[in-house]
């Protein structure tokens, strides 16, 4: 159902990165097509967050290249990533707790008046519009995001990515801090975004969730890629075996 005949939206080719002699990511290649969700699985320290940070601009790979729409991309910092329409929703949410939803949504890309001053009213209006679409129950536009629930904070983070028309979305454990209802909300949102043709990298621990939300799963162990599989071809036990033992399921071994 995912058309993988064209150019991939993103191609991470042969990425390696080491921290003080420890190979955090070791020659890993993964690709992502429009309208596809690729799950990145692995233990803590398997290297999945490190790998994806080369795409979001938080780290710089030692060797290997990143291709966006078939063209080699030079991503040195988070600002560069944004220029390629890559948006990241971090595990830690990356929200400034003391600012309100609108200030966070536009952080680093504020709307300004013709005098060059930040236009709070316009930003609040835009925030009300987009939150009306993503999370219609959202009301706390005037409070600092510290006062929001986990799901509300997550919707602010997602609204930020959606508002700036991300083509490539990186979600680092987006449901880790959420209750069942809020998790469902995020799941529905991911389906929405898929329909719009976004490519999504989803980093997660939970194999059930990956089976449910993703099209393909890339499993990493000790910095190396164990394999990339279609989630419909494998069971959750197969995925667990890949994560724990680092073995590809036998029926897929070529």
């Amino acid at each position: 159902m995912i058309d993988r005949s064209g150019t991939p939206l993103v191609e991470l080719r042969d990425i390696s990165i080491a921290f003080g002699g420890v190979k955090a990511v070791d020659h890993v290649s993964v690709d992502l097509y429009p309208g596809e969700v690729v799950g990145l699985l692995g233990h803590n320290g398997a290297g999945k967050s490190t790998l994806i940070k080369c795409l979001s601009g938080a780290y710089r790979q030692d060797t290997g290249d990143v291709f966006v729409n078939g063209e080699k991309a030079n991503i040195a910092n988070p600002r560069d990533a944004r220029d390629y329409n890559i948006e990241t929703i971090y595990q830690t949410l990356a929200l400034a707790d003391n600012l309100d939803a609108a200030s966070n949504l536009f952080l680093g890309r504020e709307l300004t008046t013709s005098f060059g001053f930040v236009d709070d009213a316009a930003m609040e209006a835009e925030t009300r519009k987009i939150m009306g679409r993503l999370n219609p129950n959202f009301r706390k536009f005037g409070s600092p995001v510290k006062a929001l629930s986990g799901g509300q904070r997550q919707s602010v983070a997602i609204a930020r990515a959606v508002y700036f028309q991300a083509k490539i979305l990186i979600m680092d454990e987006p449901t880790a801090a959420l209750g069942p209802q809020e998790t469902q909300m995020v799941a529905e949102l991911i389906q929405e975004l898929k329909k719009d043709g976004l490519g999504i990298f989803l980093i997660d621990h939970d194999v059930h969730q990956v089976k449910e939300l993703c099209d393909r799963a890339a499993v990493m162990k000790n910095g190396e890629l164990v394999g990339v599989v279609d989630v419909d071809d494998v069971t959750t036990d197969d995925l667990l075996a890949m994560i724990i033992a680092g073995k590809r399921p036998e029926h897929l071994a070529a």
Partner: protein
Amino acid sequence: MADASASPASSQRKNILKTMEIDTRLLGMVGAFIVVCVMFNLLTDGRFLTPRNIFNLTIQTVSVAIMATGMVFVIVTRHIDLSVGSLLATCSAMMAMTQTSFLPAMGVDFGNPLIAPVAIIVGIVTGAVIGAFQGWLIGYLAIPAFIVTLGGLLVWRNVAWYLTNGQTIGPLDETFQLLGGIGGTLGTTGSWIVGVLGVIAACVAIWSARHARIHHEFPVKPVWAEGLLMVVAAALILGFVAVLNAYEVPARVLERQFEASGQVMPEGYVQGYGVPYSVLLLIAVAVVMTMIARKTRLGRYIFATGGNPDAAELSGINTRLLTVKVFAIMGVLCGLAGLVASARLSFHSNDIGTLDELRVIAAAVIGGTALAGGLGTIYGAILGALIMQSLQSGMAMVGVDAPFQNIVVGAVLVLAVLVDILYRKKTGAN
């Protein structure tokens, strides 16, 4: 959308304070300030709240208050600046040497109208360069601000000493001295004009903010609340002007002025001082700093970085450059404070600004700036400076022994922070 969110909000609005959307924390500080003033007024048989003492209190506060506004930005970004008193001394020394030594050596004689503006620019540039340098050490070389500015505390105090060979430099240029306080005031008519302009500006600001919210169909406060706010603002501004105008120039000073111009003073002639230029400078600094904090990207980034440095960095904010900017602003304000402090004394002395770093930090903290970062207001810091100065000069008027004065001020600082912590715990928010 707007209607839906307005109706539950308005039903929750129970009391007048909520309707007015007034910061209860600010109200608490104003309350504390009033208590301090009334208490000293009773203890001094009414000498504390005279126009003369209020005038003196105001001009004594200016130097520390100017720096405290910059300290808000420094502390909001989770740094500290211990070098402000010493930096003030270096700026003051540069300004003093420029007008008494450097410029005369270049053939610009005493009394030349160029002296004051050139000296002021030299002082401000000195502050900006040194501040930016310290900010670079902190932001780019990742040396903790505490260490960099602790070093700066020693370095700049003694750079000032070296520049002047430890001598007291004075008297300073007469135009320069106008910014010291009592030496340069607007006079009564000028003060009323400025006061009225201030009232108009405040009303326009309140009204246009309301208009912007209506334009976007956001909920707004009732009209009477906005009106009351305008009346309070007008009363405060005009009341302040009236008090400063009520402080009359002593008769012998006037007589001397008339004699100097070869005239005889008319019988019963009186003249009020009005608003000092240094206070106008403080107001201008406060307005500009508040605009930066609330209305510019720079200010937004300062508060975002203080709230969550990682989030700021990941949002594409250059937090290192931001640190340089924040400390450069602090340096500029030290230059302005040095200008006011040395102009008030009419000379530069070696110990100018000693211990000001503690007063400035205390003013910012009493004014509600959280050392954990991300929270603080400019007006709070100025009010904090005013409270500190009131305590200090009130105790001096009452005749409290010098050691006890400092003991009380120190205890009040700790107590103020405790009250603030309790307040924040109780209200939960902010």
